[in-house]
């Protein structure tokens, strides 16, 4: 089970980030989650949005360099130890995590985690065994 993530190339320059978020806001595209990987020269802005196709075409029309990746979206109960369980499952399952980031939903009961791994289905199964549910793309728009 996986959800769609958009990555955008951002130059380490003042204003590059705002330009991207402004562009999406103008098109009424909601940002569900956002994270930035930074290097000395450039950054990669990773986004989970309400309308992925629209966001991709809008960004491309603005000459942004984008790529789409299937990632795992994990729903966590907002309580102590929830994240620790996920980390434990991943480590015991010998899963190599490229990166992860968390975001909040609209209710205080749940938090969400985005995982970039190489086998999304395997990770979803391992987590489900521990009672941790992964979300579908459909659910992303309902968060």
């Amino acid at each position, binding site marked *: 089970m996986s959800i769609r*993530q958009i*990555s955008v*190339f*951002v*130059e380490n*320059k003042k204003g*590059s980030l705002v330009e991207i978020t402004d562009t999406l806001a103008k098109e009424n595209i909601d940002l569900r989650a956002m994270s930035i*990987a930074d*290097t000395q*020269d*450039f950054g*990669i802005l*990773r986004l989970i949005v309400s309308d992925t196709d629209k966001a991709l075409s809008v960004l491309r029309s603005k*000459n*942004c*360099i*984008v*790529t789409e*990746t299937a990632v795992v979206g994990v729903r966590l109960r907002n309580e102590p130890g929830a994240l620790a369980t996920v980390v434990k499952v991943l480590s015991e399952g010998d899963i190599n995590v*490229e*990166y992860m980031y968390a975001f909040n939903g609209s209710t205080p009961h749940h938090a969400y985690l985005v995982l*970039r791994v190489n086998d999304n289905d395997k990770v979803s199964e391992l987590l489900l065994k521990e009672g941790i549910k992964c979300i579908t793309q459909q659910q992303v728009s309902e968060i």
Partner: protein
Amino acid sequence: MAEKYWQKEIETASREEIKAIQDERLVKTVKHVFQNVEPYRKRMEEAGLTPDDIRGVEDLHKLPFTVKQDLRDYYPYGLFAVPTKDVVRLHASSGTTGKQIVVGYTRNDLDVWDDIAARQLCAVGADENDFVHVSYGYGLFTGGFGLHGGATKLGATAIPVSSGNTDRQVTILQDFGSTVLCCTPSYAMYIGETLKKKGVDPKSLSLKAGIFGAEPWTEEMRQQIQELLDIKAYDVYGLTEIMGPCVSYECSQQAGMHVNEDHFIIETINPDTGEVIPNGEVGELVFTCITKECCPFIRYRTRDIGVVNTEPCACGRTFVRMSKPMGRSDDMMIIRGVNVFPSQIETVLLKMGYSPNYKIYVDRVNNTDTLDVHVEMNEDMFSDTVSDIKKNEEKLEAELRSLLGISANVKLVAPNSIERSMGKAVRVEDKRKLLGGKK
């Protein structure tokens, strides 16, 4: 088909005859500029020279160079060697950077130009029966008028189509029966592609040859144009400062351009030291005009890097041949003692899947030259993980190092962030020059 010549006697003269003509004309020209062009006289005096010191081609190297900046410094008429009442035509070139330059022609200058353009036309097999379709721009740019004058002098039928309106170009090619096409190689490609799009079979046209110049092109382009238009494509070289098109011209052999040595003396120099280097070695091409009356520039540095071939040519012409310019000496950088051309970097970028939009920054840090290449990111090379991007970047750096012989730092930048300019892009920023460290 028998080789055609416009002025066979001189085009096939012995090397001794050519040398004698050059000696005599050089001596005369040096006297002319010394008497009539103040800046030339001053420079010769500064170099401790009088016209008597120049007795022939072997003394040419003693004379100071002329560079494009001189034409700007003495703009507009400061380097003219005749009073303006004798000037019958002006042409100008804006270049890609800086102030425009202007050159003048006397009636005799135009006559010489017509002759050398006629030589070019004959060399591609044209005669008075041909229809010469000139799609170079007519105007201050020398392309249109240059070939036009040659066609007229030859007695062929000149068709002054000028550039643009490709549909009309095609109609004229069809209706007027053009046999020789003169334009830039990229426009020839465009015309060829337009024919294809319109479903016009090039074999249905009367076109047999094309004379293409005024911009760099490759052998691959020559093959493509020959196929697209079903013609033989010939190279021509020239520059406004020396005359315009046809300073040198390709013959039936399509193997380098014969320099009109009875009007221009060609030298090859080391662009850094200005030293003359032997024929056959790569260097900056330098021309001296020996028959011009209005703008007889002495040792004009073209900034074009090329090589002079003195081997006899199967066409029977005895003028030396120059290669197609392989780059601009302005573009050549010396970094940590190694010669680097932007074109090399471009080749690597394309090969590795990056866009050819790049900018090169050269600097000197702690007495060591640094080379930074900014490259615009594209979707093919982008990934959601830093490690993938870095891996590609390292591969690119390794490839650059292996081709250039020195290491370069690559910086990936946003698309469209490198400035575009009409014509040639400014590819290099050499910060060492700002420090006055290097000329």
